[in-house]
């Protein structure tokens, strides 16, 4: 009894074994640190990525505005009271609101007389100022002849100057703003006529070629409509296919072939689905180009294999005893599936679906083929209106020459990431809340 232990003790204490033990401990330690190092570098890269996007992007949520005392000049707009009510709107739309803004700025800077000077002065305000003033008048026709103080968006160059993105110490020729313009901006700023405030336009407007007016609302709506179609198509089809394959289909050569094909489809590059969508939905079915219904259907086809695979795994995880018990109590095959298997498998199916949808949300390549990579200003109102999607908006802005789009690009990425985090958090939450353990 004691012999072996003595023998082993002597063996463990032998120098050769001690050395081997040290070596083993050392490699254990190295192994652990390699793992920690890998995680640390991954975290560092992620932090760098997010940090650079966030530092570039947060300023997109703020916007510089200029307060102007707009005189709704009767000479510019015309006498609205003389017109019947139905014609007033057309008269307002025809009016030159640029003249009203020039007037307001000239009243503040009466020394600026030359044509180019007035143009330079007007270019401090955004092109959106005109439509904003027009909308004020459309809302209240009685403004004619009165002076109203209002905040209008500043030009993107002014915006970047106020945010400190462009520096003042460059030579004038290398700057987009002249010395005179910077002087005017400082003059307005000293009077409290310039403020930097929360950028509501970024969240409420569609795309624009003016960085200060560009917003993500159109893209978010487009993504939302597209994902609804994707979900409506891929979820029922995917779950039905999975239920049939798992519960009803006989295990034959055919089901094996189908299974292999579904697994392969899940790995097909997304651009292939774009080409399929172009050929089938646009070429054969003549659906409208750039529409969320086509984009959603294309992305639905792309997500379908993922959902089938996930749903099959979830259904397979439901223990056979549940099915057998239900059958034993006289439930029909449909009742077994609908009342017992599917509800129990649902958390897993939903988690997989949400992750599939998150992938669809971040997809641009298939949308390129069906015309959703486009400049679309109007916010889509239905599944057949032309629309774009959030990642597409990021792509389009990143390609724009104007400096102001750099922060908008990062801002849009932040919004996209927020949506992805929300969706993934929902997936995790669902799994933890609903998951049953056997």
């Amino acid at each position, binding site marked *: 009894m004691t012999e072996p232990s003595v023998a082993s003790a002597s063996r463990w204490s032998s120098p050769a074994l001690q050395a081997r033990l040290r070596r083993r401990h050392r490699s254990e330690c190295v192994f652990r640190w390699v793992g920690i190092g890998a995680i640390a570098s991954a975290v560092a890269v992620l932090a760098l990525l997010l940090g650079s996007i966030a530092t570039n992007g947060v300023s997109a949520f703020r916007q510089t505005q200029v307060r102007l005392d707009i005189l709704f000049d009767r000479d510019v707009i015309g006498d609205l009271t003389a017109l019947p009510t139905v014609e007033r709107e057309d008269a307002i*739309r025809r009016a030159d609101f640029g003249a009203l803004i020039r007037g307001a700025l000239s009243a503040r800077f009466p020394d600026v007389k030359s044509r180019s000077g007035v*143009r330079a002065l007007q*270019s401090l305000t955004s*092109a959106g100022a*005109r*439509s904003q003033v027009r909308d004020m008048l459309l809302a209240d026709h009685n403004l004619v002849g009165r002076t109203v103080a209002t905040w209008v968006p500043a030009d993107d160059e002014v915006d970047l100057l106020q945010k400190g993105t*462009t*520096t003042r110490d*460059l030579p004038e*020729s*290398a*700057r*987009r703003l002249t010395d005179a313009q910077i002087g005017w901006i400082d003059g307005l700023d000293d009077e409290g006529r310039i403020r930097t405030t929360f950028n509501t336009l970024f969240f409420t407007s569609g795309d*624009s*070629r*003016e960085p200060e007016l560009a917003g993500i609302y159109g893209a978010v709506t487009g993504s939302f409509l597209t994902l609804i179609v994707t979900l409506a198509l891929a979820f029922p089809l995917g779950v039905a296919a999975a239920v049939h394959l798992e519960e009803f289909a006989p295990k034959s050569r055919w089901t094996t072939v189908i299974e292999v094909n579904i697994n392969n489809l899940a790995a097909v590059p997304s651009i292939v689905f774009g080409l399929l969508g172009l050929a089938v939905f*646009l070429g054969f*079915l*003549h*659906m*409208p*180009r*750039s*529409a969320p*219904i086509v984009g959603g259907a294309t992305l639905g086809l792309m997500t379908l294999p993922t959902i089938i695979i996930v749903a099959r795994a979830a259904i397979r995880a439901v223990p056979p005893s549940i099915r057998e018990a239900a059958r034993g109590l006289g439930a029909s095959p449909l009742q077994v599936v609908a009342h017992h298997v599917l509800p129990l498998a649902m958390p897993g199916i939903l988690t997989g679906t949400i992750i599939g949808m998150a992938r669809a949300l971040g997809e641009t390549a298939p949308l390129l083929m069906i*015309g959703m*990579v*486009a*400049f*679309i*200003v*109007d916010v889509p109102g239905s*599944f*057949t209106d*032309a629309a774009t999607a959030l990642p597409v908006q990021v792509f*389009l802005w*990143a*390609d*724009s*020459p*104007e*400096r102001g789009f*750099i922060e908008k690009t990062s801002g849009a990425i932040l919004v996209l990431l927020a949506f992805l985090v929300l969706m993934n958090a929902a997936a995790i939450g669902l799994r933890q809340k609903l998951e049953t353990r056997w």
Partner: protein
Amino acid sequence: MRKGRCVGSVVVAAMMMLWATSATARDQIRIVGSSTVYPFSTVVAEEFGRTTSFKTPIVESTGTGGGMKLFCGGVGEDHADISNASRRIKLSEVELCASNGVTDITEVMIGFDGIVLASSTKAKPTALTLRHIFLALAKEIPAPNGDLVPNPNQTWRDVDPSLPDVKIEVLGPPPTSGTRDAFNELALEGGCKTFPGLEALKEVDKNAYRATCRSVREDGAYIEAGENDNLIVQKLSANPNALGVFGYSFLDQNADTVQGNTVDGVAPSFENIASGAYPISRSLYIYIKNAHATSIPGIREFTAEFTSEKAYGEYGYLADKGLIPAPKNQRDKYRADALGSKQLRLAAQD
């Protein structure tokens, strides 16, 4: 019975989905084509949407060739109304159009785009010539004895003793880009023509001449930096020795970080490109499908807006975005063409 009803309801649902998509008529102009013209078309589209009661046109950036394919696909709601092009329409494209029933096209030249060879403002500006560009970037160059040899030049000093002793590194667009086509044609071929031997080759073997004069070296001196010109601008600031090839509007917007180098002694400035003094500049076009003018609302008004002086004129808003306006007589001519829906004639094709 039950099975029949089940299949029936599935079919009805599928048909309703199809019906829902095909019922509405298009009331929005659709524009496709060149990514170089895209920044200008979109600005006009936005202004048009803002100031008229028509919907804002949809502008897709598909590249000139891809746009022409869509544009020439046929007549009807499924096909684009206007095509942007960073070069003139090709004979083959006009034939494709005609074979699909698109015969009545109006051509409008909207202005010029200069292709700049820029470097970081941290670098010393270099005075280049077309000949330098050819010697630095062509795949094969003539050796002193006149034979073509693979380009041996590694530094700019190898190209010309007057140039700095730095490695040749040029960041530019990939072959799929219209900018690259124009660069090959105007810059490389322009430099190629300065060699009498190669000029003579044109008469003998046109294909060999083209292959020699328009082929860019593939040994790493010319770096394909993708279609995104902003990326090239950023890479230039990081590497003061490199040159970048991109459109004038990006130089205009980034004058604080990059500078354009002179070519044949001419700086790539607004005035020099407009006057035609700067050698690497090309014309930009839009093509309008007249058959759609009656069925899609706003096409006439849109082209009128595009060709108005406040848009493509000398002080128009497109000039603010970096488009170089055409001379006054050309603008007037194309405005008249656009308003009169003048049909494109192939006789002018070279």
